[in-house]
């Protein structure tokens, strides 16, 4: 069964110039374990699509099945639970909480899951070790580099063992060397069976994924499976 099934999904925004149709009847299906890159120029609807995928927003029309669950029928609290357990988010700007130690940052999703302090600490340290940052647990985000911050953000996304990782331009703020490290990490996670969907406009980043989906003017204009390419940055 597909992990993600989207049929006829539309979304429009009200702007000063009138209603703007950001997504036009988009349909997409993603199987468990896929590695998908979503590409397209700005304003093509890819960010809107990611927000809908991540259960941060609701579509105006269409159906969304995630892991066999009808998303459009859920309450805000049920959506929060899905964001907490089924999806891990990685952002372009890392989005760590600046006042908290790295360990507390990674453990934050577990707080909202209601786990006890000891379990939270153990799981957070385990995840920091997994992204190669054991020993940094007590540091503050401002004390480490951008690449390390993105690793912490990935550790936070992984801490609840999600089935799906959504990454919105995860290498957008990083140099090419660090980008490569991050993409290698995503590739390794995908090899473990986690479905990874990332938005990027860099072809060498997109080349790491086996499937590329291209958006233009709110529609999917290309959906191709490509073998791993030589220029891939991973």
């Amino acid at each position, binding site marked *: 069964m597909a992990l993600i099934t989207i049929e006829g999904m539309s979304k429009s925004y009200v702007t000063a110039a009138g209603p703007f149709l950001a997504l036009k009847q988009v349909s997409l299906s993603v199987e468990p374990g896929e590695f998908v890159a979503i590409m397209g120029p700005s304003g093509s609807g890819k960010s809107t699509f990611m*927000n809908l995928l*991540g259960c*941060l*927003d609701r579509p105006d029309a269409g159906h969304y099945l995630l892991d066999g669950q009808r998303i459009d029928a859920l309450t*805000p*609290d049920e959506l*929060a*639970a899905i*964001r*907490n*357990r089924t999806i891990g*988010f990685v*952002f372009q700007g890392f*989005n760590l*909480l600046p*006042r*908290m130690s790295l360990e507390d940052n990674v453990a*934050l*999703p577990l*707080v*909202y*899951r*209601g786990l006890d*302090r000891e379990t*939270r600490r153990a799981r957070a340290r385990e995840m920091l070790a997994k992204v190669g940052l054991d020993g940094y647990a007590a540091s503050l985000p401002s004390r480490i580099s951008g690449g390390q911050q993105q690793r912490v953000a990935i550790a*936070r996304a992984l801490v*609840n063992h999600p089935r799906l990782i959504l990454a919105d331009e995860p290498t957008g703020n990083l140099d090419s060397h660090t980008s490569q490290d991050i993409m290698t990490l995503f590739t390794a996670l995908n090899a473990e069976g986690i479905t990874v969907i990332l938005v990027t406009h860099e072809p060498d980043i997109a080349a790491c994924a086996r499937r590329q989906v291209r958006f233009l003017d709110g529609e999917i204009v290309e959906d191709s499976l490509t073998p791993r390419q030589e220029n891939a940055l991973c």
Partner: protein
Amino acid sequence: MLGAMLHEAWQAMGANRLRTGLTMLGMVIGVGAVVLMMAIGQGAQYAVAQTISSMGSNIFVVLSGYTAVGGVRSGGGSAPTLNVADADAIAELDGVDTVAPVHWGSVQMVHGANNWNAAVNGTTPAYLDARSWPLAEGHSFTDSDVRAATRVALIGRTVAENLFGEEPPVGKTFRIGQAPFVVLGVLASKGQNLDGRDQDDLVVMPYTTAQRKVFGTAFQGSVRQILVKATSSEAMPALEKSIEALLRQRHRLRESADNDFTLRNLAAVADSAAETARVMSMLLGAIASVSLLVGGIGIMNIMLVSVTERTREIGIRLAIGARQREILLQFLLEAIIISVIGCLVGLSLGVGGALLVGYLTKTAVVVSGSAALAAFAVAASVGVFFGYYPAHKAARLDPIEALRYQ
């Protein structure tokens, strides 16, 4: 979960110490002012209650009627319409604790080189009981002194100081006219009554002695007033009616005739004084509450700024699975922590200030546990009340908008 949230709230407050401190200061001043004003107000109430209890509680005063000569009326107590037999009859009524007939006047008294003019109350030993008036030194006179009209007296503190100075007065004699009187005891000091009159400027002696050997009263056995102490304040209304009925019957007054006596309820006077003090206390509390309100608005103001500043953080939290009520709870907790800590500091400053005021002005100041508890409850509710709107605003943020916020 709550532990983690408390920890986070603490961190958030610590990140901006000056701002948190200033917000707390609003609460500190508010709670401190309320506690201080309540303490002063309750102190005033306490002082009034002390004065009232010094008059004796649950007391009726029955005054004899007045004489009128050629249209000139001489005021209550001037006609010999009450007598000791009336007092004895009242003592038989239900609800009566003690009865003391009183015949008073003022005379000049002499001891050695000193002389002094003071009120003399001729009464029975029950008088001290009725007025809850203990002796500081010596002992009281007895019923046999009353029967024999012996020349003995109890003197108030003011009289003792003016006649005897530094000398211990018990056992000494003073003169009224040519007659010597032995001081049996000195009354404990009662201070001023509600009118500001010195209650200690008084000599108490058997009414027989007063009538025969001091005033030379024409109508022996008649008294100017009868002091009646009821068993309880609940018994007073019924007793008032039965005293009136009894005296009308004893004085053979016809249905149409006016009373030839006046019945006064001292409790009513006391109640109005207590009510005045209570209103003043409430007024002080109300004025102080305004500063508490201002402190609460300060919390709301800062929490609104904090929510705006942390919009992005809220977006991140929502994205990784925080429910709306968890965001709400987090901001609410911060507001409550600020107000509760502010309250505790304000409470200690208020209590300290009250004790200082009491010490400096030598007035009664009462810090009650219930007032402190009330201040605490109010502070917590101020935190919830003024913290709710900002917290609600935070919880209702759109996660996408919040994540985009720079």
